[in-house]
């Protein structure tokens, strides 16, 4: 197929998905300013969902057409190389857009009777804009600006339930830790600039490999600080403390959004910065970031899973398990030094993040559904839900078992891909940790399944409404999670191809 941006379309259209997000956010503002007092929540949710779906469709179309991929002439440079569009950009934009679409559909019911709905949707879409720009960043400055564009709406969204103390407290914590880690990262960027004299990823790499580094000590500290900033965004240990609080306190669709899309955004930043700007074989004398990520991955997955196993509330359990999954995804960077061709390792992480985008979003949206019913938050409160809502509970079962790595969804393959990557690199410790953690995770995921299906419902359990938007989002996420099992090949081949372009 003809590469779109050199044939029929001008090159700037490669940023189409991000532009669609931004445009939709602006349209929402306009609609709201025309009639601020209206309660046309259907219209607002509809616009937001349509915008997200359009972004997903465009990024999916570009991915299939090969925009910015090796086979069609390589990455598309825009704005003097500050922004780049390649397979990885589009792959991650597709994740963000799918998650955003699911979240906005689900929010329609969740936000019923809330004020400031237009602001909610436009903030969500602005955060998605930040994410897709982050995926397209090719310089530390655009990366930082995109990161802030992603973070600021997120802080507001976490505190969206402003009459709820938990939500406000979570927002405040998230904001404080976020601000701190942003400044750490900004400082790290300035140190990298001081050492190499450049901000663009490619130029930084040239300086490092070509011996243009003024002081390798300063560079090392700078890289370490960037690692810290990334670890915050991906909720990796030891920068994870905000995550359970924020996910717990935030409105459940926002928890889904943050733990799936925002986390993936952190990873795309990490992949590009560390693989392109700080090439391992050149920088390893200064600082071995692969080792840093190995430790990070081990600690993150173990701590996340063990903490998840001891939780009493489902949402908190999911929050900690999502920390555990960040640990799995870090494997892609951790094993890079051991493999001859890193594209499979990195691709495995990308596959996992894509599948995770659906299964984890779905699980959090199920929690949103339960919150909507006002059932409660602990495992006991979930008792007997299946007798009232079998379809939603079947969907949740798919999410949970897929998260655990059982072959009921794409999570089985993506986890296997990670395992294969560790084995290929001979990182047996990581492989063992992955297997042990998976076995452990089955224990706490199956607690929810047991509560829903096996336990007797408590006396007062009565569900009388079945919100369309939430239901649709949960069911669609479950269907996609399941379909990704037989139809995993497009995901795996696209991910590996996109990852290969970085090397």
């Amino acid at each position, binding site marked *: 197929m003809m590469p779109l941006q050199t044939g029929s379309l001008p090159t700037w259209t490669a940023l189409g998905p991000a532009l669609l997000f931004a445009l939709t956010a602006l349209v929402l503002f306009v609609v709201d300013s025309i009639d601020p007092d209206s309660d046309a929540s259907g219209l607002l949710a509809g616009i937001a969902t349509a915008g997200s779906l359009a972004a997903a469709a465009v990024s999916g179309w570009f991915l299939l057409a090969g925009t910015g991929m090796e086979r069609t002439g390589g990455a598309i440079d825009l704005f003097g190389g500050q922004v780049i569009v390649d397979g990885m950009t589009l792959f991650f934009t597709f994740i963000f857009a799918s998650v955003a679409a699911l979240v906005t559909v689900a929010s329609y019911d969740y936000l019923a009777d809330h004020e400031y709905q237009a602001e909610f949707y436009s903030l969500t879409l602005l955060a998605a804009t930040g994410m897709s720009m982050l995926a397209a960043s090719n310089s530390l400055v655009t990366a930082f600006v995109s990161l802030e564009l992603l973070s600021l709406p997120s802080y507001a969204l976490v505190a969206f339930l402003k009459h709820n103390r938990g939500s406000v407290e979570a927002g405040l914590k998230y904001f404080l830790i976020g601000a701190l880690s942003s400044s750490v990262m900004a400082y790290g960027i300035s140190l990298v600039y001081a050492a190499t004299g450049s901000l663009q990823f490619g130029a930084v790499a040239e300086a490092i490999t070509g011996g243009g580094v003024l002081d390798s000590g300063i560079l090392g500290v700078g890289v370490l600080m960037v690692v810290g900033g990334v670890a915050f965004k991906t909720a990796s240990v030891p920068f994870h403390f905000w995550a359970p609080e924020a996910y717990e306190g935030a409105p459940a669709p926002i928890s889904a959004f943050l733990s799936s899309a925002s986390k993936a955004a952190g990873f795309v930043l990490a992949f590009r910065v560390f693989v392109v700007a700080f090439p391992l074989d050149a920088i390893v004398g200064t600082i071995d970031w692969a080792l840093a990520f190995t430790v990070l991955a081990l600690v993150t997955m173990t701590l996340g899973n063990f903490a998840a196993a001891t939780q009493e509330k489902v949402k908190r359990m999911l929050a900690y398990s999502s920390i555990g999954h960040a640990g799995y995804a870090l494997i892609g960077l951790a094993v890079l030094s051991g493999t001859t061709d890193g594209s499979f390792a990195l691709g495995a992480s990308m596959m996992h993040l894509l599948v995770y985008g659906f299964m984890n979003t779905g699980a959090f949206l199920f929690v949103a559904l339960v919150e909507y019913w006002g059932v409660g938050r602990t495992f006991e409160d979930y008792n007997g839900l299946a007798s009232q809502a079998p379809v939603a509970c079947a969907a949740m*079962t798919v999410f949970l078992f897929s998260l655990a790595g*059982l072959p009921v969804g794409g999570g089985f393959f993506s986890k296997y*891909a990670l395992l294969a990557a560790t084995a290929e690199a001979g990182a047996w410790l990581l492989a063992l940790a992955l*297997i042990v953690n998976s076995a452990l995770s089955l224990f706490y995921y199956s607690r929810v399944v*047991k509560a829903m299906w*096996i336990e007797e419902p408590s006396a007062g359990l009565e569900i009388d409404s079945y919100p369309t938007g939430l239901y649709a989002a949960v069911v669609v996420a479950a269907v996609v999670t399941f379909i990704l099992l037989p139809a995993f090949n497009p995901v*795996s081949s696209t991910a*590996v191809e996109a990852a290969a372009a970085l090397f």
Partner: protein
Amino acid sequence: MLIELLLAASLVAAAVVFFVPNEYAAKVATALSLVPVVGSLLMYFNFEGSGNALLAGAELGYETTMQWVTLGPYTLNYHVGVDGVSLPLIVLTTILTTLAMVSAWTPIDSRQSEFYGLVLFMEAALIGVFSALDFFLWFVFWEAVLVPMYLLIGIWGGPRRKYAAIKFFVYTNVASLVMFVGFFALVFGLGDSVTTLDLPAIAQALNAGELNALAGIDPATLKLVAFVALFAGFAVKVPVVPFHTWLPDAHVEAPTPVSVLLAGVLLKMGTYALLRFNFTMLPDVAVANAEIIAIFAVVSVIYGALLALAQQDLKRVVAYSSISSMGYVILGLVAFTPHGLGGATFQMVSHGLISGLMFMVVGVMYNETHTRMLGDMSGMADRMPVTAGVFVAAAFGYMGLPLMSGFAGEVLVFLGAFQSTAISAAPLFTGIAMFGIVIVAGYLLRAMQKTLFGPYRLETDYDIGRAPLQDVAPLVVLLLLVIALGVAPNLFYEMIGDAVAPMLSLGGGV
């Protein structure tokens, strides 16, 4: 295409039944499950395969290969096909599923659509396990069996169902992970010579001695480690003593139709996988350690039978008896003789029928009396003559009465084990195992004597009479099948023998 039809028919049926209102679910599910039955019988009558699916020179029945997923260096295929070992087990699965569903009409009185939906889903997974020839596809089905089983025990089980369900789930899933690791030790050890997870390709590469060292472990040790991991993983499923403790819990708590499938088909997954993986892929390790495996087998036979002898709960008697019977299967496999391998496979089918039948008998008696305690029941033969008659016949089948399938299976296993040169003290092991038959007769006669004969003394405030036709009909059908296989073992034995014959030339076997 018949395998795909079977899989699709049961999956679609599962989805349909899930949405059918509860009051119609039982009949709709049973009717829909006839499609796989007919399909599997068509497969049986039109089967034109030969040889062993994993070994060179095999002509598989209904084979399909399609590229599925590329993951790094490996290509995963959708590869299914049947040989003489898997086809009988598929026929067993479809028939037993339908009969188990009929036997569920009476006892399952809540959330029927979910129940039958899960059973049909499990049927699809079981058919998949017995037909998949790519490791990943096979593993997908293998694990997919766990989820419905977990829910079936957990929702419709007895008083301690939650404990039993979790125990089953954790035990068998950990076993799967151990097995998974063992298998991948082999795959990574094969290195670049194998780029698919196709089971025949891997089996042939292993038998050609292409295994390399991995992570500093030399090939011989790697083989042994992988064998142990695989064996441990499958032994839990079989179950072999001492990995059996989940089984009585699961069986006692499970509702009757689920017990039927658990004993009838799920346990066969373990021995089937042992045959495919341990004994076909690593035959030299199996032969080199034949005595140790034979000890496991004989201990299972004797210990399981003794445990059955000590039980007061009729269902526990039947549950423990499975441990004993599956011990024969292991003994037959490790003997590595034509009769041993063939008899073991035949015994899988035969035990599936007979143990399913026994569990159904217990279920029917329980439906009427609401007790399973040997001490409470007495004189049931007068009140429910047909059920009692089937019970006696099934018990005789279990003991190995001629013209019943149990006889054919056990005789072949003993014959094969006795002639074995793989096991050095084969006559001794066989002799001890044969003594197990005596204990089997002991506990079955005891169970029959306590429940069926003697004066009627059960005190209930309702009248206990003949079981309804819908409860008895599946019993009679199963009994007829048991007799048919006993009279004419060649219905299956010929194709089984043909499929296991190529295994004999492997790994220094005889």
